[in-house]
């Protein structure tokens, strides 16, 4: 995989807005924002041709920090916003941004169906294994013994495995990145955006406020020991033994994106009335 080409006319800073992020100092999402802008610059995309769509949560604040079109919607529904937009505006690059609470809990059903629908867009989930904006409750990817005020002693529940679910549901590109490696993450994002169909990128993005233990992630992540595959069965087997810290593109599918025809009327509106005539 080639590294980001900085010789292009577009600079990453062209894609950054003047809005000051609400994120805590040290939040992994700052680096995700940097990766977004580097990926957009690498692809040389006109800013007005990109739409960054999100739901609710710390990570979902990202659209306004870009200098692209953005939509900061309601909790958990960003994939639906993105689907409606991309189907009617296939000319746009649609990137949907979410977090582990927004994307896997309240938005879980949309995740399954977005993978299945395979519309050509990129879904980025910044996973910090905690609800940050509401101050530290467990999410579907939180460890069972994570002790919180809402769940004293931990949930006792096994975490959810987003990559397995993405693959099983039909996502056409599955990758994991780490926010602390913004160049590598930008490469993966650019790759995901270029790849036709529904691309899913999980970015491990530490919450230093409520999960200070996640500072250790930088020493835990490592390049995936195996090359990417286009065989979903092989990808599935690898994922079942995944340690959660393998970084890189895992699966690159060849399924045709869902792109219904739009904007090509075959008749005059008056023609529609004919079926009602007596």
């Amino acid at each position: 995989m080639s590294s980001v080409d900085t010789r292009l006319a577009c600079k990453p800073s062209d894609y950054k807005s003047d809005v000051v992020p609400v994120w805590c100092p040290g939040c992994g999402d700052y680096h995700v924002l940097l990766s977004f802008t580097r990926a957009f610059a690498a692809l040389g995309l006109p800013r007005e041709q990109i739409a960054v769509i999100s739901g609710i949560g710390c990570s979902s604040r990202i659209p306004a920090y870009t200098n692209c079109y953005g939509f900061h919607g309601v909790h958990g529904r960003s994939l639906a916003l993105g689907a409606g937009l991309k189907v009617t505006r296939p000319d746009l690059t649609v990137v949907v941004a979410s977090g582990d609470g927004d994307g896997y809990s309240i938005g879980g059903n949309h995740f399954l169906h977005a993978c299945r629908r395979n519309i050509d867009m990129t879904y980025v989930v910044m996973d910090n294994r905690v609800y940050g904006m509401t101050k530290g409750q467990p999410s579907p990817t939180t460890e069972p013994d994570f002790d919180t005020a809402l769940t004293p002693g931990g949930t006792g529940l096994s975490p959810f495995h987003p990559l397995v679910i993405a693959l099983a549901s039909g996502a056409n590109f599955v990758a994991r990145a780490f926010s602390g490696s913004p160049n590598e993450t930008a490469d993966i994002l650019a790759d995901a955006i270029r790849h036709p169909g529904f691309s899913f990128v999980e970015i491990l993005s530490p919450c230093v406020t409520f999960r200070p233990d996640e500072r250790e992630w930088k020493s835990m992540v490592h390049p995936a020991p195996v090359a990417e595959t286009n065989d979903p069965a092989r990808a599935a087997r690898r994922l079942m033994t995944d340690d959660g810290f393998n970084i890189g593109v895992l699966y690159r599918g060849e399924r045709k994106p869902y792109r219904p025809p739009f904007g090509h009327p075959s008749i005059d509106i008056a023609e529609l009335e004919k079926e009602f005539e007596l």
Partner: protein
Amino acid sequence: MREAAGISVAIIGSGGAGALTAGNLLLEAASLAGWHGLLTRTVGPQIRGGEAAALLRFSTEPIACLSDQFDLLVAIDWANANRFDSEIRLGPSSLVVGDPAGGEPPPSVVKSGARIVNIAMKNLAKAVADARPNMIALGIAARLMGCGGATLMTAIEKQLADKGTDTIRASQSAIHCGIVAAADLDLGFRLAAPEVSDAKRWLISGNEAIGLGAIRGGIRFAAAYPITPATEVLEWLAPNLARAGGVLLQAEDELASVNMIIGASFGGTPSLTATSGPGLSLMIEALGLATAAEIPIVVIDVMRGGPSTGIPTKSEQADLNIAVYGFHGDAPHLVLAPQSVADCIFTAQWATYLAESLQAPAIVLSDQFMGQTRAAIARPADVAFIGRRREARDIAAPYKRYALSADGVSAMAIPGTRAGQYTADGLTHTERGIPTSRAEDHGAQLDKRRDKLNQFAYGDHWATIDGDGEIAVITWGSLTGAAREGVDRARADGLSVRLIAPRLLFPVLPEQFAAALNGVERVLVVEQSHGAQFHRYLRAHFELPEEVHVLHRPGPLPIKPGEIHRALVEWRS
């Protein structure tokens, strides 16, 4: 024999017996012959093995509702007929035709005093190859209303064209058997012949009419999650949107469908979804987002009995409260209600126009009566309402998406427009769209969104106002037809009555409403809601005269013209 201007016919049977098919063919034939007519369906929740009734009314005059009582009931069988006998009112002058092989008529039918005649429809059908008893029933009904001629055969050929000539022949033979079997029967009156006219007429259901009006108004994207009784809106749109250059996407749930249309509209495409009460409840959060982010969308609610799953297949007008007041926060938006099958076209089109003009969500409250009624109507006039939002072009930085303009409407940059990049947001935002929690910003944007709706010139379409009497019947939605007929009868009795039916329910227009009420001394409110939601809505927003009566009840029994007439007449004495 006495001649009557109208006739009411019910054809019933167990689910799958073909009562609705027979009813639709009769409607088509009578409409082709020139009568005005409509068919309202009433069915149970089962797909097979339940019960189904085609409730029909025909007249030489335009009609918009069922009548008080049925002149003729043809029962293909009596299985489960007790489940809706209260919806099919009969009297001593009614004729009931049943088949002894199909069971016994329920006690209410016997008690009504109606003349009951037996015809062995099942046996007659057996005698004709490939024939079904519902076609015998159709022949009987057609004979009794004087509509058994060439137009019926034409209707059969048209409707059954895709089933092949054998089926058409068999059906025609069975219909003929029914006509012969009913040769000696009469209703005690004869339906007057229709006036012959060259005017173009349509046969259309309310749900189809909503779809057509939406496309006329500019809708090019729909997201769909099936729900009774709204599904036909979406099923009609699916192929027809595609022909018009649009697309319909099936969503995984109503949360997705409403957010999909918000996403598409953000991209510049006028967008719609259709649902019923439970689905509207799920969509309400996102409707608030569309209000705050100023994204135009249209949501059709074909109301059914509620709350919860309620009576999915039958009508009620009890979603008024959620449509008007259901949003959290102060969220000005549009709520409209069509008043007839024909008006579904206009109101859906106007709603699209208003939503786009005002960059606000519009909820259109239809209901099962209107949505699943097919009616022969005069071809509706083309109207000029095409949804076009104010777009920002040639933008000089910095772009203010939510600029505080004089009319409250700010130019919207469509993605792809240079220098227009902004983030649409449900968070309280500044004029530039940047999140803020400052009191001044919050107040300014709340004012903006309120004022843009309140300052708009809605014209005369906001309500139907008919007459200037000192008694006002105030109603809404599908009951407008029954109210008009009740008012007409009261006028024939010498009462001075006016009819007021708002088509635009939200925002409220207090000045226009006061003008409509000018000179009114007594008000009769008519609505299909157990909690009298419309009455409370009127009380909340308008000054009503001292004397107010309320005629209301829940669905599914429609309020009939005779009840409205009686309420007016009895009030006088």
